[in-house]
Structures are given as structure tokens and as C-alpha cells.
């Protein structure tokens, strides 16, 4: 019996093999089958070979058809595309604007994310660099004691190299105005560890660590600013904190660690840094380079074994110590990761909305042009020609949108650099990344091409006569309209989500601004001073300087009061922590010792800052260097460590020694001070201890000057008063306290503004989308409306016909969007303050705003429907 071809084979052949050559190929498959039968192969083998032939032929047919659709733009196509755009300027403008917004915002945000979050650090093999963290008593800090550095990091097998870093601030004198400079003391191998070549001179060398430490490597910025970028600075001398130091080299321009460091000097430990008592004094940060095969997690695990061993050896100071190796990159990007991820998420939503809108526009245009395309096809245009022409149009549209988008991206990035908070590293040197721009262009071009081609694809495989005979009564448009409805609903949902996010951030911001900081920043000007030890060698010098300075300042007209403090809120002052214990109780082991933030203030501080006293008395003139030692605590300390007692009159011992020859006898608590927000309005007040400056004279402090009214003290007055006492002393960080408080909100403001911009763009786009669908529906149903009006339908009834449609779209979109906002809420809950992600007020406002905008977009085309002239509508076509 002759085998028959398998049914599957015939079905596949009929389905897959299409096109001009199909009959020959099908015939050929038939021939091959009969050949094989004639050769006497087994029926199963014949069928197998037949199936293989069919699949291979189908594959080559499709490959050939793709090869045929290679496309070259012709001048004629370009001219035609341009004419079409000119003929429908509104549609072209909307499409181009939408594309521009999409490409512009995406590129800007990707540029920022790329530049800040994803950019590798400018060091050799930066992924191998880790910074170490030390966890103790539930706090994780980057600070180590030199002894722990020696014991933890030294014996570790995980690191190829490690270096200690101590941020310091010094006064530079001798060349122009004296200036306060941030910098760092670092181990001599610091530059080799980072793997950066010097721009000039040499890096620190091993010998520098043996000597007096009077060498310095300048930052590129400092070298250009103070030394005019002269190449002969190497081996010259400059004065830092009254010491003559030799400039040995200049660092490359992109070396920025620690942040804002202007110089690096060798770090030299003293023998007393390694005495057992010094184990608890943490003042050194550690950078390390991992060995090649070691991951940060493995290093952490290895460090933890060392920590466990030390905890056994030194149970008093090292109990429960934990150690962490974190990639340096993560540490630098730190807190803004969440902000950036939020931006990323919202820009993705905007991009989706843009694509949906462009798709919807082009879809509508495609529907309207199906007849034109069909006529062209009927007149002999090949499918290839049709595709080429539509592709040209889409490309022209896409490229115009892309060009506008690139311009917009440039403006956005500019704006972000100008408005962005300075706490984000790398932000100032951002510029639009070409890869990123290409990405944005590609994604929108793909959308516009995909949807621009629909009419050409619709023509193939259909009877052209049927399409030519089409009229606009709607039968064919139905599927297209459904697609557009879905697109518009998703646009509305995306817009609702963005709007909800922006709304929540705005509410948080407003709430934060109403938070009482615990002091009155308005009218207070601050600046910091540091008395170089070389010129103020005696411990009695700083207090004498301070009291002379304060009397000079208070004598100025308009100045109400002036005070000095170490640890002023919202400044970058060192947040010193200290342990303390109740006098009379035995020394607890350090793990359970109460800790508090330490502030050292002059008596006028509370008056100047307007911090209320809750009990007892503030410091006053009676508290001198020789009088009994006194201390103030804040309410938090009283609640936490003196529950149910009156702390006033009790005595404590404070373990910190910040000042030279500070007195360390038991101190009597003389008063309780109101809580103050120290580092941010959204943060809890820590437990605080205040010490009087007279009894704890530190040589670096911040001066706060309150002027009457809201006037800010004039900078020249401040300078003159300081210079009257010491002309070589530089004033650093002259700021109004109100501005400092405001600046602490900068990052939030930044996120909020960007999200708000996105939300507005999204709402605008979805309103355009709603309008587009409604206008399209009205156009499609012109004849029907004409008929309705002619037989007596009321205009209001016609309006309602379309408003109903718009309301349905809006409700579904809003519902989906609000559900999405609730689901996404927990992502941004960490950015919120005082509101929950499901805040009903915000969601209600969002719903009303979006519904209002969509309602307007519905009403305009609906009203125009009611104004259709029945005779015109029925006569058309």
C-alpha cells in the first residue's frame, strides 16, 4: 500500500508556507515525498523525512521574506511623509511632544541613575574595595579604634591591603586669606590601595609614616585654587594648623574620598593609641581591598570569626561586637538608593504611558488610513513599498520627537544639577550620557514603528476590494477602539499611581515643615572656628579667646546674643557620643553603659537658640573652670536613664575626653533641657548631655549669633570681630541656621519635585489619551449622531452618550491606578513622614484631580458631538 502524507504535515505545509513561491515549494515537497516512496523507504522514515522537509522549507520561506523586506528610504517616501505631517500638524505636534517628553525624562533620569548609582568609582578595580563597619551596642558605625584595626583587620586573610582614614579639618595659612579645609589623615599606603596615579609629584610613602607627619598631598581643586595649578608646588612648604608641611604631590582630579577632602596627610599612631584603655576609643575609618577570590560576604564572615575571638579575649569592651565589610560604592550611594529607585520606577511608568499614548495616536491614524493604504495596494503598490512608506513616516515622526527629546533631556539634566542636593556625590559633573539617550530613542522608535506599521500589515492577506469598500461606519474600527480603550485605561492607571506618589511626598514634606525643631533657627547665623594648637598652646587660651569673642559680638548693634557650641544642630559638627554612669554605682561593662550625644556649650547657648529649660537652671557665669563640675541633660536622657526620678542634683561620670586636660570628676546635673531635633526634622531626638564650655574648653567649635528680628548678622561684621582677636583665623561655613534646617529638606524637596513633574506629565498625557479616544469615537459615529439628532434626540442625550464612555474609562483607570498605588505604597513608605501610603485624603484628592481632568477631556469632544449638523453628517460620503 502506498503510504499517505501525514495530516499534520499537510496542515503545517498549508499553514506555514505562504507567499509567491508557495505553489512551487508545495509541489516540490510533494515530489520529494513520492521520490522517497518510490525508493522503497519504510513508511515511517518517509513521513519523518517529509515533516523535516516541510519545516525546513517553512523556515527558509520566512527567512527569505524577512530578507525581502530590507528597506531603504527613498526621497519620494520622505517627501510624502513630510507632506502628511504638514497636513495634520496637530497630530504631528502631539505625537512629537509626547515622544519628546518620554525620551527627555527617561534620558534625564537614566543619566542620573547611571551617573550616581551605576557609575564605577575612579579607582583601580573598584568592586574589590570595601569599607568596614563596626557594630557595637546595637549601633553600626564606620569608626574603629586603632587597636581594633590592628587586631581585626591585621590578621584577616580576606584583604590584600587595608588603610586607615581619619577625616580632619585644618586651617591653611600663609597664602592669601586663612582658610578652613576638610581633609584626611590616611595610612601611607592609601593611594596604592585605591590604585590612583598621582597627577604630580609622589604619593605618600612608607617613610612618611615614620617621621613627623608633616607631608601633604593636595587635591586637584586645592592645587588649582590656592596654588594656581603651578607644577612647581612639589617640595614647597605651606602652613597647616600652624605647622610647616611639605607638599609632596597632587592627587588626580576625580579622587574624592573621603567626600570633599582637599588634602591627605600621613596618619601616625602614637604608642598610647595601642594601650588597652584605648580600645574603646573609635576614631579611625577603614578601607580595604579584597583578595581576588573573596567576596564582601565572605570577608564579613571571616571578620566575624575574628570578632568572636576578640569578644572572648576582651569581654568587657568587645562583647557582641560585629563586623561588616560593605562595598565602597554602596556606602557612597547609601541613603539615596531608595530615592533613585523611586525615580526609576516613576520614570518607567512615564515611559509606559508615553508608549501607550504614541501607540494610541498612531493606531488611530492607522485606522483612518487603512482605506488609503488599500487603495494604494489596489493600484499596484507592493507590500514592500507600502511598508517602506509607512516606515519612513514613523521614522520621521520618531526622529523629530527624538531630537526634541534630546534637547529636553539636556535641559532636565541641567535643572537637576542646579536644583539637586549637594549630598549626592557625582551630581555636579553629570552630563547627558549618549548611551542613555540612545536607549530612550530606541524604545520610543520601536513603539512608533510598531504601531505606525499596523495599516500596512492589516492590508496583507486580505481582500483589498473589501478594504477599499470600507466606510467609517465602525465595523472594522471596533477592535482598534478596544485596543485604544485598554491603552487609555492603563495610562490613567499609571497617572493615578504617579499622582498618588507625588501627593504622598508633598504631604510628607508639608508635615515635616511643621515639625518643631526644638529651637528657633530664624535670625541665627553660625560659623565655625578652630584654634590652632601651635598658637594657642595653653589650655587657658581657648576659653579666654571665646569670652573675648562673645563680648565683642554681643556689643555689635542688632546682636541679641552670641554663644559657642560643639555640636550645633543641623551643622556638620562632629556628633560625639559618650558613655556615662551614675556616680556611686560601679563601672558597668561598656556594653551596657548608657550613652548620649555630647554637646559642649557656653551659657548663652540656650538663650541664643531659644531652647527652653524644663527644670533646674541653665549654665551661667557661676560655672567656671574652677567651680564644681556641672552638666545638663535633655528630656530624653531624663526619661530613658532616670525614669521616675528627679535627675536634678544627681551626679554622673562622663567617659569622653574631648578637650585637653579636661576635668573628669563627677558632675552634678543642674537642669533639664527641652529635646532638640539634632540631625533632621524626621529623626528622633537622641539622648543628650550638655557640658559647660568653661569646664570643657575644646579648640574647635561653632559660633551662633542671634540678631534681632529676622535680620542675618552681616558677614563683614563677623569677620572683623574675629580678625580683631586673631587676623590669621579663618571663618568656615558661614550659614544662617534657618538655611541649614531648610537644606536638610533638600533631598526630599528634590524627590518630590521630580515626582510631581512626572505626575503632571503623566496626567497631561493621559488626558490627551482620553481626549483622543473620545474624539475618535465621535468622528466614527458622526452619521449615527446625525441620525439620532435628526429623529429628535436631545443634544444633552448625545453628550451623555459620550460622557458615559469617558466616565467608564476614567473609573476603571482610576480604580486600577489606586489599587496599584496601594500596592506600590510600601515601596515608598520609607520616604514618607507622618502619612501612611494609604492616606485617604491624598488618594481622594488624586482621584478628584484626575477625574476632573479626564472629565474635561471627555466633555469637549462630547459637546462637539452635540453640535454636529445632522444634514452635514448624513450627506457626508
Amino acid at each position, binding site marked *: 500500500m502506498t503510504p499517505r502524507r501525514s495530516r499534520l504535515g499537510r496542515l503545517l505545509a498549508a499553514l506555514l508556507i505562504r507567499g509567491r513561491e508557495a505553489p*512551487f515549494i*508545495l*509541489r*516540490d515537497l*510533494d*515530489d*520529494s515525498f513520492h*521520490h522517497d516512496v518510490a525508493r522503497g523507504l519504510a513508511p515511517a522514515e518517509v513521513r519523518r523525512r517529509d515533516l523535516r522537509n516541510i519545516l525546513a522549507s517553512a523556515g*527558509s520561506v520566512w527567512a527569505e521574506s524577512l530578507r525581502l523586506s530590507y528597506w531603504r528610504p527613498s526621497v519620494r517616501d520622505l517627501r510624502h511623509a513630510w507632506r502628511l505631517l504638514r497636513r495634520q500638524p496637530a497630530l504631528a505636534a502631539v505625537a512629537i511632544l509626547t515622544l519628546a517628553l518620554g525620551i527627555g525624562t527617561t534620558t534625564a533620569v537614566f543619566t542620573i541613575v547611571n551617573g550616581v548609582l551605576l557609575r564605577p568609582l575612579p579607582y583601580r578595580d573598584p568592586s574589590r574595595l570595601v569599607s568596614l563597619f563596626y557594630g557595637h551596642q546595637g549601633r553600626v558605625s564606620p569608626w574603629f579604634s586603632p587597636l581594633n584595626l590592628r587586631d581585626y583587620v591585621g590578621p584577616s586573610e580576606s584583604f590584600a591591603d587595608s588603610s586607615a582614614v581619619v577625616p580632619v579639618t585644618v586651617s591653611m595659612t600663609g597664602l592669601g586669606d586663612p582658610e578652613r579645609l576638610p581633609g584626611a589623615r590616611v595610612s601611607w599606603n592609601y593611594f596604592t590601595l585605591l590604585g590612583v596615579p598621582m597627577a604630580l609629584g609622589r604619593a605618600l610613602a612608607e617613610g612618611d609614616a615614620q617621621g613627623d607627619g608633616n607631608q601633604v598631598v593636595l587635591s586637584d581643586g586645592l592645587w588649582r585654587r590656592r596654588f594656581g595649578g603651578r607644577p612647581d608646588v612639589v617640595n614647597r612648604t605651606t602652613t597647616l594648623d600652624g605647622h610647616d608641611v611639605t607638599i609632596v604631590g597632587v592627587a588626580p582630579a576625580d579622587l574624592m574620598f573621603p567626600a570633599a577632602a582637599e588634602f591627605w596627610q600621613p596618619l601616625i599612631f602614637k604608642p598610647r593609641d595601642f594601650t588597652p584603655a584605648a580600645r574603646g576609643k573609635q576614631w579611625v575609618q577603614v578601607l580595604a581591598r579584597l583578595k581576588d577570590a573573596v567576596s564582601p560576604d565572605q570577608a564579613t564572615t571571616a571578620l566575624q570569626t575574628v570578632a568572636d575571638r576578640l569578644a572572648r579575649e576582651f569581654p568587657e569592651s568587645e562583647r557582641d561586637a560585629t563586623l561588616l565589610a560593605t562595598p565602597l560604592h554602596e556606602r557612597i550611594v547609601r541613603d539615596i538608593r531608595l530615592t533613585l529607585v523611586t525615580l526609576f520606577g516613576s520614570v518607567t511608568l512615564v515611559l509606559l504611558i508615553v508608549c501607550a499614548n504614541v501607540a494610541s495616536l498612531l493606531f488611530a491614524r492607522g485606522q483612518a488610513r487603512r482605506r488609503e493604504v488599500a487603495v494604494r495596494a489596489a493600484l499596484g503598490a507592493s507590500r514592500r513599498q507600502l511598508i517602506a512608506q509607512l516606515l519612513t513616516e514613523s521614522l520621521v515622526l520618531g526622529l523629530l520627537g527624538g531630537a526634541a527629546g534630546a534637547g529636553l533631556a539636556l535641559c532636565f539634566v541641567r535643572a537637576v544639577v542646579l536644583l539637586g542636593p549637594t549630598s549626592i556625590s557625582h551630581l555636579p559633573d553629570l552630563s547627558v550620557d549618549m548611551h542613555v539617550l540612545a536607549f530612550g530613542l530606541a524604545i520610543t522608535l520601536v513603539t512608533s514603528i510598531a504601531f505606525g506599521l499596523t495599516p500596512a500589515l492589516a492590508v496583507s492577506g486580505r481582500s483589498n476590494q473589501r478594504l477599499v469598500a470600507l466606510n467609517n461606519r465602525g465595523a472594522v474600527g471596533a477592535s482598534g477602539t478596544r485596543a485604544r480603550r485598554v491603552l487609555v485605561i492603563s495610562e490613567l492607571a499609571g497617572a493615578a499611581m504617579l499622582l498618588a506618589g507625588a501627593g504622598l511626598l508633598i504631604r510628607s514634606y508639608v508635615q515635616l515643615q511643621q515639625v518643631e525643631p526644638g529651637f528657633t533657627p530664624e535670625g541665627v547665623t553660625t560659623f565655625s572656628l578652630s584654634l590652632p594648637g601651635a598658637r594657642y598652646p595653653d589650655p587657658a587660651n581657648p576659653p579666654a579667646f571665646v569670652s573675648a569673642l562673645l563680648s565683642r559680638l554681643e556689643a555689635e548693634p542688632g546682636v541679641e546674643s552670641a554663644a559657642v557650641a560643639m555640636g550645633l544642630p543641623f551643622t556638620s559638627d562632629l556628633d560625639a557620643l559618650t558613655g556615662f554612669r551614675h556616680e556611686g554605682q560601679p563601672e558597668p561593662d561598656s556594653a551596657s553603659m548608657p550613652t548620649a550625644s555630647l554637646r559642649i556649650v557656653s551659657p548663652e547657648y540656650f538663650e541664643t537658640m531659644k531652647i527652653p529649660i524644663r527644670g533646674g537652671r541653665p549654665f551661667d557665669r557661676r560655672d567656671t573652670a574652677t567651680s564644681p563640675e556641672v552638666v545638663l541633660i535633655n528630656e530624653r536622657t531624663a526619661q530613658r536613664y532616670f525614669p521616675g526620678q528627679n535627675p536634678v542634683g544627681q551626679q554622673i561620670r562622663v567617659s569622653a575626653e574631648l578637650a585637653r586636660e579636661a576635668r573628669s570628676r563627677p558632675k552634678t546635673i543642674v537642669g533639664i533641657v527641652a529635646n532638640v531635633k539634632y540631625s533632621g526634622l524626621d529623626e528622633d531626638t537622641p539622648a543628650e548631655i550638655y557640658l559647660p564650655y568653661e569646664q570643657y574648653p575644646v579648640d574647635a567649635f561653632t559660633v551662633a549669633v542671634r540678631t534681632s528680628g529676622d535680620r542675618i548678622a552681616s558677614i563683614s561684621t563677623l569677620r572683623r570681630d574675629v580678625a580683631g582677636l586673631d587676623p590669621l583665623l579663618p571663618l568656615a561655613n558661614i550659614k544662617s541656621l534657618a538655611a541649614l534646617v531648610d537644606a536638610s529638606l533638600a533631598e526630599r524637596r528634590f524627590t518630590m519635585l521630580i515626582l510631581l513633574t512626572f505626575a503632571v506629565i503623566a496626567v497631561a498625557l493621559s488626558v490627551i489619551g482620553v481626549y483622543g479616544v473620545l474624539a475618535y469615537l465621535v468622528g466614527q459615529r458622526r452619521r449615527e449622531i446625525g441620525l439620532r439628532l435628526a429623529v429628535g434626540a436631545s443634544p444633552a442625550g448625545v453628550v451623555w452618550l459620550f460622557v458615559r464612555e469617558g466616565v467608564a474609562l476614567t473609573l476603571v483607570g482610576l480604580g486600577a491606578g489606586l489599587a496599584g498605588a496601594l500596592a506600590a505604597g510600601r515601596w515608598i513608605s520609607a520616604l514618607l513622614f507622618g502619612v501612611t501610603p494609604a492616606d485617604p485624603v491624598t488618594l481622594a484628592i488624586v482621584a478628584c484631580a484626575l477625574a476632573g481632568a479626564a472629565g474635561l477631556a471627555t466633555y469637549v469632544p462630547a459637546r462637539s458631538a452635540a453640535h454636529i449638523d445632522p444634514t452635514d453628517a448624513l450627506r457626508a460620503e
Partner: protein
Amino acid sequence: MGHLGELEQLILFAVTALGDDAYGGAIRAHIEERSGRIVSSGAINTTLGRLAERRLVIGRVGTPVPGRAGRPRKYYTLTPAGARDLQQSYTTIRAMAGGALKRLDALAERKS
């Protein structure tokens, strides 16, 4: 003068050998009979299409035969250009092989 791939050479030889009867299925059978190589119809048709584009063969539609769903075959003949290219390819192989065959046999004989 274009370069010919191996499959192209096989097909052109088959077209030459089959004369007036060179259609896809016959070419495929011829190659399989002579060389033992199983080539899929898809590959043969694609290659014939390319060869036709390069004007090395000319396709001609045969008269539809009733009974096979009225589908015609496509027959191919070698053009003078195709003949010259095939000649050139064969000459090249022969020239390269000349004198090397003995050594080749000896090498192939050797155990891995």
C-alpha cells in the same frame, strides 16, 4: 566571477546532469543518490533562489499537471555564467588537489 559554496556546487552539478528535468525534488534525489548526502528541500529551494538572483540559473514554470492539486513545478537550467562559475570552481579544486592526493591518502590512513 563569484565564489560558489559547496551546496551550490552540488546543486549546479545536479542541474547540469538532469538537463531539462531539473526541478527541486529531482535535484534533491540526484544529490542523495550520487553523494549519499540528505539535503532538505528548504535548503535546495533557498539556494536555487539565490543562484537565480545571481543569474547562474534560470527558473521556468512548468505546465501544471492535473492531479497534483494543479501545482506547477519550477524547472531550472544553467546559464553560461553559471556554467563558467562551476567550471572555475571545479578547476580550482582540481588544481589544489593535484599532487597532494597521495599525501592526503597517507595521512587519512594513519590511525588518529
